[in-house]
């Protein structure tokens, strides 16, 4: 692995470092006559197997020929040269005996990078420079040297008095100079590493000496090089994008994270990784990909809500560039409100939750918007049956760049096709906008301004008009110091509005509007105090303002009386301290404490109820009025986050963690799946905040040198003061929500198994989850209970879940991928007996969630066809043909019963009860690779 070889070929020669693990040179191998006449690919396969030699070639480029052998015993190289030279290929062998079949003279432009991918051949960027100067970032030009070189960092004199030195620098993409976030720098000898921050900056402190470093990020190829660390110094790296990646679906938590990081219960997905996944109605939806991950379930399809590890949907927090998004759905949940083209990646934390996150019990979806290209203007877009959208991006001057994305629907025409006049005359409309502007005045500072808006409008003739929108903006400033210190200060504003005009019943026609404001200030400071310790401290404070608005009569004939609701205010603040501690080569601990304090603020009238009695209207004793600025109630809570990782050998590890979290805002919902009309509510005088504890352990291993990644995680979660709803609760008009709420407990546990094949022509993943989520609501003091005090399965409790995602690259331009989804049906309450009152037949239902819907099963398929691969073209287009629910299985969304003509009939409602084909066209400026 440490031998560098050079293939010098023509001008613009590139340097290739072989890092293949091939054994000894196979130069002398002389195949026998049984090789004569074999098609070239078979020939290569056979030789690879029999002689242990490794070939590097581009499958798509290789000519379709049969190997002719001249009769004399010849070496592989001779045979191949004899057969391939006339086809314009050169064959060369490196010091390790690896054999390269490359197109003569055109190496730089036509070698597909996939040729080298699996063997991890890398190519350093031309601008790679090395410091031996005092001003470390002005490196000597090495572009024209073709010899492999160990980069010397710093000088002996400066490092003389110290045993350790810090290496730092930026990792950017060679493609467009954009910083690579969360790229990994890994020190092979020490089996440790670090990742880059939001600015692409990394820093690592090591003992002085020689090391092999591997740099890699999700979107780029791996780069490996030697350093000789003499003193503190800088090394900026530019990584090559994986242009023709076979593994565009790699969802990473990549290799190093999987086994070596302390993170568990963590998934990261970038937009370019999901390019091939099948889509519903042609909408590429990065958020919905999360449904294919272990531990993530939804109540039903067509629901935007997520249930992560046995928690209700409101225990997940979604934010995009720090802006919280309180309703992540478009069109009642069929699509998510994020334009995937404008998203770089998202990270989901469901296990060990870093201490800088707080305020939800179950998971955090941290979505990063594209920053925009730094080198040139670019645009891309997508047209699907439902929406069209475009993203533009580019630099502004030297130091700033921007990205703006707009997506809108034109689904109205679809409605026009429907025969039913009520639907034909209905309107549905949604749109979203993402804007991102980043400026780096100097190397030490970065300023990001971000804006987000999503909008939904649904007008159902004669029934209801519904509008909702998210609006948010954030301003974030990062400051870096050379020696691993970083400060971030962010100011965040988020707003969610919902309005409805309901005219179902003329007598009770009403309208109401609802609004939630979220104003947040947060600051964090992190630094690496020593080689072993990485410290992060931070504070944040959120001011919530909820305006439930008024309920007003909609028409003159409506009998609804005006109802006014008092506004709610609350402040949630936290201060935290976290440390990541490398105890030894094998053991790493990380953890932290987070002190939360939450206050519910006046002005507000609070009802007082008889003590130890159910909170119902008739138990109200009197009221207390709190004026503006009064603190009505304060809740303090301490969060703990502890995680440990122990390496077992080189490619396996075990991890364990414990997390405690608190949550002060929740969704008022009593529907089976979350509906857009559900309102958010703050913890208040009567409703206590929820507390969650999660214990988890995991085992991670890489098999066959990373050919397969296997992980197994188990968790146990307990939620105290879970907010549940009394049967028949109606929140919209209830001025006293505490009368409809009972607090109970949630117990959830599960095992998640994940096998991933990250690379290769065929790649993808497969996971299986066994889980259980049980709720119990019984207040022994007040006698309030749900389900007569007996425990019941949560609505989203689906014990067995299996997902398979596979992607097969037929050629550079054709790609086929599929998904198989299976899950136990959700629990349901069925009517089980019948009785009569005053002649009316009434169905009597079972206990809550005593039965289950039929199992859910679905296969999706999609084919991606890339436009031509010419290097010089104005724009590149891609068609994606998708079929959702290929088998047309009528998966039950719900089952319900009706009494018709004195007969009880059962019905099954399926949402996508047929295969749904769709075609999406996406385009961008430039060629395929741009």
């Amino acid at each position, binding site marked *: 692995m440490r031998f560098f070889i050079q293939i010098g070929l023509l001008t613009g020669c590139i340097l290739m470092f072989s890092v293949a693990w091939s054994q000894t040179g196979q130069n002398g191998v002389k195949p026998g006559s049984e090789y004569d006449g074999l098609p070239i690919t078979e020939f290569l396969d056979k030789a690879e197997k029999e002689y242990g030699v490794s070939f590097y070639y581009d499958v798509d480029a290789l000519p379709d020929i049969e190997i002719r052998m001249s009769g004399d015993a010849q070496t592989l190289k001779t045979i191949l040269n004899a057969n391939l030279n006339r086809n314009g290929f050169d064959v060369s062998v490196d010091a390790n005996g690896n054999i390269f079949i490359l197109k003569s003279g055109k190496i730089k432009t036509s070698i597909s990078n996939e040729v080298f991918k699996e063997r991890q051949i890398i190519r350093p960027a031309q601008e790679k420079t090395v410091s031996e100067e005092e001003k470390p970032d002005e490196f000597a030009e090495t572009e024209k040297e073709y010899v492999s070189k160990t980069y010397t960092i710093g000088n002996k004199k400066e490092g003389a008095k110290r045993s350790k030195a810090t290496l730092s620098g930026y990792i950017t993409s060679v493609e467009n100079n954009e910083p690579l976030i969360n790229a990994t720098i890994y020190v092979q000898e020490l089996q440790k590493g670090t990742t880059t921050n939001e600015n692409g900056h990394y820093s690592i402190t090591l003992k002085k000496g020689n090391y092999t470093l591997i740099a890699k990020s999700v979107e780029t190829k791996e780069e490996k090089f030697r350093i000789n660390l003499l003193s503190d110094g800088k090394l900026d790296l530019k990584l090559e994008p994986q242009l023709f990646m076979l593994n565009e679906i790699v969802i990473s938590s990549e290799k190093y994270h999987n086994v070596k990081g302390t993170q568990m219960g963590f998934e990261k997905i970038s937009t370019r990784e999901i390019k091939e996944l099948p889509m519903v109605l042609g909408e590429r939806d990065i958020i919905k990909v999360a449904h294919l991950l272990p531990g993530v379930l939804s109540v039903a399809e067509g629901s935007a809500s997520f249930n992560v590890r046995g928690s209700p949907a409101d225990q997940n927090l979604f934010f995009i560039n720090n802006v919280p998004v309180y309703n992540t759905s478009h069109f009642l949940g069929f699509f998510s409100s994020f334009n995937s083209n404008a998203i770089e990646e998202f990270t989901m934390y469901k296990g060990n939750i870093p201490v800088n996150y707080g305020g939800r019990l179950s998971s955090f979806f941290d979505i990063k918007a594209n920053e925009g290209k730094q080198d040139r203007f670019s645009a891309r877009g997508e047209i699907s049956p439902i929406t069209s959208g475009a993203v533009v991006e580019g630099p502004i001057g030297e130091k700033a760049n921007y990205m703006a994305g707009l997506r809108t629907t034109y689904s109205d025409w679809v409605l026009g096709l429907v025969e039913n006049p009520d639907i034909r005359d209905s309107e*549905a409309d949604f749109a979203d906008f993402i804007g991102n502007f980043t400026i780096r005045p100097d190397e030490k500072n970065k300023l990001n301004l971000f804006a987000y808006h999503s909008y939904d409008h649904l007008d159902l003739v004669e029934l209801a008009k519904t509008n909702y929108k998210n609006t948010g903006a954030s301003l974030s400033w990062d400051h870096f110091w050379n020696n691993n210190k970083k400060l971030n200060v962010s100011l965040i504003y988020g707003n969610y509005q919902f309005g409805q005009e309901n005219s179902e019943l003329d007598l009770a026609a009403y309208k109401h509007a609802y609004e939630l404001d979220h104003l947040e200030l947060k600051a964090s400071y992190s630094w690496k105090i020593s080689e072993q310790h990485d410290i992060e401290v931070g504070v944040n404070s959120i001011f919530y303002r909820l305006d439930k608005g008024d309920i007003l009569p909609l028409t003159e004939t409506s009998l609804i009386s005006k109802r006014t609701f008092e506004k709610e205010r609350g402040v949630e603040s936290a201060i935290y301290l976290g440390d990541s501690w490398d105890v030894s080569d094998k053991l790493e601990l990380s953890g932290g404490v987070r002190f939360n304090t939450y206050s519910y603020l006046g002005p507000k009238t609070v009802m007082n109820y008889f003590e130890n009695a159910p909170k119902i209207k008739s138990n109200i004793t009197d009221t207390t009025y709190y004026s503006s600025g009064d603190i009505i109630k304060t809740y303090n809570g301490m969060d703990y986050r502890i995680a440990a990782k122990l390496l077992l050998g080189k490619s396996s590890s075990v991890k364990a963690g414990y997390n405690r979290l608190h949550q002060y805002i929740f969704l008022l919902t009593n529907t089976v799946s979350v509906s857009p009309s559900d309102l958010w509510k703050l913890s208040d005088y009567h409703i206590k905040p929820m507390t969650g504890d999660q214990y988890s352990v995991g085992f991670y291993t890489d098999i066959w040198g990373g050919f397969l990644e296997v992980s197994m995680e188990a968790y146990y979660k307990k939620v105290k003061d879970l907010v549940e709803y009394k049967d028949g609760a109606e929140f919209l008009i209830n001025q006293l929500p505490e009368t409809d709420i009972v607090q109970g407990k949630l117990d959830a546990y599960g095992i998640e198994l994940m096998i991933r094949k990250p690379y290769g022509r065929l790649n993808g993943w497969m996971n299986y989850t066994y889980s259980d989520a049980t709720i119990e609501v019984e207040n022994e003091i007040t006698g309030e209970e749900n389900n007569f005090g007996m425990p019941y399965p949560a609505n989203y409790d689906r014990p067995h879940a299996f997902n398979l995602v596979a992607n097969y690259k037929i050629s550079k331009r054709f790609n086929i991928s599929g998904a198989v989804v299976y899950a136990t049906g959700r629990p349901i309450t069925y009517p089980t007996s019948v009785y009569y009152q005053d002649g009316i*037949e009434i169905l009597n239902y079972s206990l809550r969630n005593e039965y289950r819907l039929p199992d859910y099963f679905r296969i999706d398929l999609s084919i991606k066809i890339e436009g031509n691969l010419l290097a010089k073209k104005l724009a590149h287009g891609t068609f994606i043909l998708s079929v959702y629910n290929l088998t047309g299985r009528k998966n039950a969304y719900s089952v319900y019963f009706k009494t018709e003509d004195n007969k*009880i009939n*059962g019905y099954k409602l399926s949402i996508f009860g047929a295969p749904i084909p769709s075609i999406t066209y996406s385009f961008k400026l430039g060629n395929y690779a741009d």
Partner: protein
Amino acid sequence: MRTKKIIIPALIILAGITACIDEYWPGDITKYEDLLVVDGYISNEPGPYTVKLSISAGINDPRYLPLGGAEVRITDDNGYNELLTEIEDGTYKTADDGIQGEAGTSYKLTIIRPDERVYESGFQMLRHPLAIDSLYAKLEFHPSEEHAYNLAGYQFYITTENAEHDSSYLFWDLIETYQYNADFTIEYLYDGGYTRFPKPDSLFTCWRTGNIENMFLYTTENLSPPQIKNFPINFVSTQTKRLSIRYSMLAKQLSISKKAYDYWNNINEIIDDQGSLYTSQPFQIRGNIKNINDENEPVLGFFMAAGVDSKRIYMDRPDGVDFHYGECYADTDPRYLEAIPPGLWPVYVTTTESGMYAYGAETCFDCRLVGGTINKPDFWIDGN
């Protein structure tokens, strides 16, 4: 204030092409059979009052299973109590000169089942009735899922008086009576030969009385002033003979307790809510009757005490609208008539306009066979 129901059209909008509803029956879901069911109320209207006891039936075999042989007793908060008499299987009645409900008094139901299990309702306060201000009907045309045309019919509306108390919880018990004719008069009897029938229209006109099996309830809770105006109750279409001659509806407006209202409202909401996209969970609804030794035993039904105000309305056959009920076919082919075996004689025979003998099913001649009675009810007032 229903907000969920609207979603189903939304669903159709999007997935109209693919969403589908199929008949479906889950496997064996029979459970919670054999539960005690209580049905009845006491009111300020003159007695006697009836209470019906039954047993819940399996969902696969829905039927009314009366529970006889129980001891049923109503007690008021003054200590007076009366044992009800079982007048037919499972139906228990107070004496004609027995207990009389009064507003402001509370009543309790006690049941001792034949197997000695004892149940009680707890005291139910009889609320003051809220008077009906007006009850009227309008000819309307309602869209229908089954038919391409709109259904014509009378939509009944009710307006209450202004409630003195801030909230009234109302439940409308609707009883309809309608006059209708059989399709044919009986002109002859056939018993091998034709005998003239002495009173051809004696089984021709009937009155049928029944409960309207739809639930109507509302509350003044969110209304100001606390008055329910023009609340739509039953709709009677021209798809049946109900409006063919004269129709009468008795609306009993029951002022009930909030608990009783919640019970009915929950049942109603569950029925309403089914099959849409954002449904709430249906749930088991237990009434106000408890086994005094086992609180966890589910008991169904609600024993109510209600303040009642009643009003009756008559509507004549609407003019200028189509009726869509089926009528018997008068078969004039004598061969079929003559083939009827003597065991089934005598057979009713009518005559056509041209004087031919015609016959049909017995129900075409005898109006009583479809549930009515030929005795005009005492309250009935003929139209013009």
